[in-house]
C-alpha cells in the first residue's frame, strides 16, 4: 500500500471532523472522496497533507509515518493540488512550477540540473510546455489549474492529494483536467486521493470511492458499488436515480427535481 490511513480522528476544539477513518490507496489508483458539505472531505485532505494535526491515528506513506517528518521530507512524499482559484501575480508558469522543487532546492532555491529536468517533465505532463514563459495571471482557469497540477508533479511524489481540483472549471476543462490526471497516474504509478463534488465525474475517473458522512466512511468501494440510489439518498438526503451507461459501463447519477 502506498498511502495507509488508520483510525484517524481530527477535531477542531470540541467538534469532531473526522471519526475513526481508515483508508488504503494503492499505487496507480485514484480514490475519490465524496460526501455532503461538512462531511469531512477537506479535513481529511488537510490532515493527510499535514496542515492540521490529527487528534489520533496514523498516516503512513510507503511505510513512513508522516507526522514525524519535516515539511521538506513530507513534500518529497506527497504533493497537494489545491482548489481551483484565480491566480494573480506576474510569475511565469516556469517559475511557479519550479517552486514545486522547494523540498529539493533548499532555502536558497538553487536550481540543480535535476530540478530543471523535473520541471520540464512536469510541464510536459501537464501540457504546459508551450506556455512556460507566460505569466500565470494571463492564463485561463483551466490552464491555471494545470499550473497547480504541474507544480505538484514537479515534487515527484508517490502520493498526490487533490482538493476539488475541478471546481469553477467549465465542462471541457473539467474533463480535460481529469483525463490528464488519469493518464499521469497510470504512467507514473501515483496513488491519488481526491475530494470531489461532481458524482458523475467521480464515476468516470475514480477507481474507488469513499463516501463520507458526518466524518465517518459510510460506504467504500468501486463507483458502481458505492454510487447507488439508496446509499446516495441516505447520505445526501435527496432522491436520485442511477443508471449504468450501456456503452461504457459507467454509473450515471440523476438527481430528481420534482
Amino acid at each position, binding site marked *: 500500500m502506498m498511502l495507509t490511513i488508520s483510525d484517524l480522528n481530527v477535531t477542531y476544539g470540541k467538534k469532531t471532523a473526522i471519526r475513526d477513518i481508515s483508508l488504503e490507496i494503492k499505487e496507480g489508483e485514484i480514490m475519490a472522496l465524496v460526501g455532503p458539505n461538512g462531511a469531512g472531505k477537506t479535513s481529511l485532505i488537510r490532515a493527510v*497533507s*499535514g*496542515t492540521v494535526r490529527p487528534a489520533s491515528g496514523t498516516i503512513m506513506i510507503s511505510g513512513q509515518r508522516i507526522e514525524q517528518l*519535516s*515539511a*521538506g521530507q*513530507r*513534500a*518529497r512524499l506527497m*504533493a*497537494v493540488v*489545491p482548489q481551483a482559484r484565480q*491566480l*494573480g*501575480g*506576474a*510569475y511565469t508558469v516556469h*517559475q511557479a512550477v519550479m*517552486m*514545486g522543487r*522547494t*523540498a*529539493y*532546492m533548499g*532555502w*536558497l*532555491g538553487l536550481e540543480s540540473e535535476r530540478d530543471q529536468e523535473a520541471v520540464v517533465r512536469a510541464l510536459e505532463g501537464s501540457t504546459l510546455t508551450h506556455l512556460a514563459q507566460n505569466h500565470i495571471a494571463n492564463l485561463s482557469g483551466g490552464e491555471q489549474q494545470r499550473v497547480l497540477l504541474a*507544480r505538484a508533479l514537479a*515534487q515527484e511524489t508517490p502520493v498526490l492529494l487533490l482538493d476539488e481540483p475541478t471546481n469553477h472549471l467549465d465542462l471541457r476543462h473539467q474533463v480535460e483536467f481529469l483525463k490528464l490526471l488519469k493518464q499521469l497516474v497510470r504512467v507514473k504509478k501515483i496513488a491519488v486521493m481526491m475530494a470531489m463534488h461532481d458524482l458523475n465525474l467521480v464515476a468516470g475517473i475514480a477507481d474507488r470511492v469513499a463516501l463520507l458522512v458526518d466524518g465517518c466512511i459510510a460506504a467504500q468501494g468501486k463507483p458502481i458499488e458505492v454510487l447507488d440510489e439508496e446509499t446516495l439518498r441516505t447520505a445526501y438526503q435527496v432522491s436520485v436515480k442511477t443508471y449504468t451507461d450501456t456503452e461504457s459501463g459507467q454509473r450515471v447519477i440523476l438527481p430528481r427535481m420534482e
Partner: protein
Amino acid sequence: MIRKYPFLVMAILLTAALLLSIGLGAVRIPVGEIVRIISGQLFNPAHNAAAGNAMDVILLSVRLPHTILVMLTGAALASSGAAYQGLFRNPLSDPYLIGVASGAGLGAVAMMSLHGMHSLLGYYLIPLGAFAGAILTVVLVYQLAHVNEMVPLTTLILAGVAFGSFASALTSFLMLRDDGAVYRAIAFLMGGSPIAGWQPVLAVLPFMLIGMGSLSLSGHILNVLQFGEEEARQMGLDVDKAKILVIIAASMTTAVAVAFSGVIGYIGLIVPHIIRLVWGPDYKRLIPLAILGGAVTLLLSDVLARVLIAPSTIPVGIVTALAGTPFFLYILRRAKREVFW
C-alpha cells in the same frame, strides 16, 4: 535594454547618484576632484593625509561618510520594505506604514535618553534598542492584523498606524523629559541625520551587512510564500522558520537604518513597487535590486534636501514624505485589485 539588464541600469544610476551626493553642497566638488581624492586615499593614503587640503577634508570626513550612511539607509529601507511586502503578501507593507520604523525610533530614542551617544558602546546600544523596538512592533502588529493566515490591507495599515502613533507619542514623551535632546530628537524623527562623521557608518555596517545579506538570500522563501502559508508548507518550506528568519533580518535592517538616520517614510514602499513594475515580482532579483534602487532614491532625495533651500537643509524625511504620499495614495487605489504579487 532597461528590462534586460536591471543590474547594469542600477549600477549606472547608483554611480551618478553617488557623484551628485558627494559633489553637491555648500562647496561644490567637481567629478575630477572626487576621483582624484578618493583614488589617492585608496592607493596612497599616507601621502594624502599629509596634504590636508580643505576640499580633501570636506570630502573625506564630511561628504563621504554622510553619503555612505544615506546610501546604506536607503538600501536598508527599500530591501526591508520589499521583504515585509513578501512576508505579509501585501504591497502596502512598508517599515513606516506598518509602524516598525516608529517602533524602532522609540527604541532608539529610549537608548539615547538612557545612555547618550558619547562612546562607541553608546553607538552600538542605539541600534540594539531600535532592533528591539522594531521586532516588538512587527510581532504586535502582525498579531493585531492577521485574520487566519492572511494579513488584509485594512487591518494591517490600521494596526500599523495605530501602533506607530502610540510609539511616536511615547517617543515624544521621552524627548520632552530630556530637554537638551529635544531639537536633536525632533530632527531625528523627521529623518534628518543628526550625527555626522564615520562613527555611525562603522556602527551600522555590521548590522546592515548581516541584515541585507540575509534578505538577499531569502528570495526563494519569499517567492514560495506568495502562494500562501498552507501551500508553501505543502511545497516543503518550513514556514515558521522562514517567517522568523525574514522578520528578524528585515527588522534588524530597518532598525539600524532608523537608529542613525531617523524615521524616513515611503522609500520601502515606492522603490520595490517600481522595481516590480519594471522587472517583475521574482524576489530573488527584487531584493538585490531594491537594495540598489533604495540607495539611489534616498541619495537623490538627500541631494534635493540639501540643495532646495541651500545653504540650509531640510530633513530628508520631509522630502520623501512630500514625494511619497501622492504615490502611496495612487498605489492604494490600485492595490484594491492586486493583492497577490
